[in-house]
């Protein structure tokens, strides 16, 4: 298995533990990741609001790199997945828009052909790698742990742009949690917004969103939360103390990146998975294991 790897900006900046844990998990599973080092930021749905055509052109430029390699794109960020998949959907369903985008790309001697697929790590593990094969690799089941999946928005909506699973009742994280030997915890808010997109603009609202869902997961006895998106992780982990104060609760709920959770079950040493960088301590979770 080989992919054109698009880690996204945050995994290479403030969330290095996500980048490193992905590398460790990919190595253990024999997944080859060829990083798109010349790819630009996807725009996170923000550049689109400054200039929609620019957002299309920047992402189409990234697609051309994967097309040249003959590989599908694998990302570890739900937001990148959502933005890129939506751009691809727009380009593939609106030929006028594709022509206009290619008009811009032609000036830098590139052309989008529509051959690339965009996949999140979670989807590749289920669809391409296969859960039964993954099960064989587990050496340290996460027994005794109750894990709250946080799907967030961009892995699920809008369903028109990609349809991995039922966006109204997703089960992919739950399947994975169960496979790793832990118990999934359901709570109100697992498919809602973490608040990150408005964290710098309407921060009190963002804190209240994150705080409410974290608190719901905690009250349903979760030992930790897992997210497939580094931006959700910023909102849920980095700003958790502020969110807790906002909802007047003492939450203290650790939040893992998806590959960190998988890495633990694969027997990768916690030090290699970068838990020391989290703002909410993972100590209690690691002690259970």
């Amino acid at each position, binding site marked *: 298995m080989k992919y054109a790897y698009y880690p996204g900006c945050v995994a290479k900046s403030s969330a290095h533990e996500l980048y490193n844990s992905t590398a460790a998990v990919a190595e253990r599973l024999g997944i080859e990741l060829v990083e798109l*080092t010349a790819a630009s930021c996807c725009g996170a749905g923000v550049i689109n609001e*400054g200039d929609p*055509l620019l957002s299309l052109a920047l992402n189409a430029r990234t697609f051309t790199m994967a097309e040249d390699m003959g590989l599908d794109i694998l990302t570890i960020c739900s937001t990148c997945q959502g933005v890129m998949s939506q751009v691809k959907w727009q380009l593939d369903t609106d030929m006028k828009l594709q022509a206009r985008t290619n008009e811009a790309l032609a000036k830098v001697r590139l052309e989008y052909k529509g051959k690339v697929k965009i996949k999140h790590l979670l989807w590749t593990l289920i669809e391409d790698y296969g859960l039964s094969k993954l099960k064989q690799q587990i050496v340290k089941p996460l027994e005794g742990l109750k894990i709250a999946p946080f799907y967030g928005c961009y892995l699920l909506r809008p369903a028109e742009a990609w349809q991995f699973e039922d966006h109204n009742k997703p089960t992919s994280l739950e399947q994975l949690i169960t496979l790793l030997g832990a118990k999934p915890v359901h709570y109100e808010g697992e498919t809602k*917004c973490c608040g990150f997109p408005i964290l*710098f603009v309407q921060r009190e609202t*963002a804190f209240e969103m994150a705080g409410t869902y974290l608190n719901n997961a905690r009250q349903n006895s979760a030992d930790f939360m897992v997210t497939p998106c580094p931006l959700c992780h910023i909102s849920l982990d980095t700003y958790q103390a502020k969110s807790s104060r906002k909802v007047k609760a003492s939450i203290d709920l650790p939040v893992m990146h998806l590959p960190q959770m998988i890495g633990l079950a694969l027997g990768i040493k916690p030090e290699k998975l970068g838990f020391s*960088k989290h703002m909410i301590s993972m100590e209690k979770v690691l002690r259970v294991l």
Partner: protein
Amino acid sequence: METKEAVFRVFRYNPENDEKPHHQTFNVKIDNRMTILDALENIKHEQDASLTFRRSCRSGICGSCAMKINRLSKLACKTRVITEVEKHGEVLIEPMENMPPIRDLVVDMGEFWREIDRGTPWLAWDEKLSDSMKENLLSNEQQQISGKLADCIMCGCCFSDCVSRTYDRNFNGPASLAKIYRFVCDPRDKEGAKRVHGLVEMGLWSCTHCYFCWSQCPRDVRPVAAISELRTLSYNTLDPSQGARHVSAFMDSVRGSGILNESTLYLKTMRWNVVRDAGLILRMAAKGRTPPLLPRAIPRIEEVRSLFRLAEEMKHK
């Protein structure tokens, strides 16, 4: 036709008798074609005549029967019972959110209508067109844009499932903003793009792009896409708000290095407000998770900068 029994858990609340709301369970014989509205009418006619809900056209046109079905806002007349049962095992029926319940499944939609009114949802007739004896027809292209937005039936599903509205009562919500954009797109409206003035105060930058309004709209109006278009217009008309500053800082960062510079995005958007995070920044630094101030530019950055220039030129074509 094959029939089976489905369990309905229905929100009940009669302020005259109930101290607080509760759920009541009903068993209903269903077939594969039955809608949620059919089932509710069956309950009302055969089991409990006091069950109260709104409905009218039964055809997905009037928008009256919007309610929460297994925690998502939908039209009862457009939702099949069998689909819900297969997915969730039972049917949980509750009133819409973000609006206070009046009785059972009926909510007070006053807040929703007030937000719609805030956006002056009517055509501001351009007097220059008034002398014309001809019809003022839209082109097919114009019709495709404003026609889709005009499909809104004001059911309130998007308002009900809007997470931002739950926590920010100043945010006027997706339906109101989509309606405003419908008139921005209409060349017969004399206000046109000027309608974006004042939207910052109505919460233009409060939307999180969670896409619930897109997913739950029974008419596929896609309000979040309209909100993005309004933000683009606002950003391009020198909107001085923090939301527009965020876009500007993001664009600067990607133009400069090809990637997002988390530090400058934060500093330029938040300005003096960063002092409120001083303690957090120190704790992040101690954990080694503060992003670099000057990230290295990506290879082939000139292509990215060219695309910035080209997109700008094409905008003015």
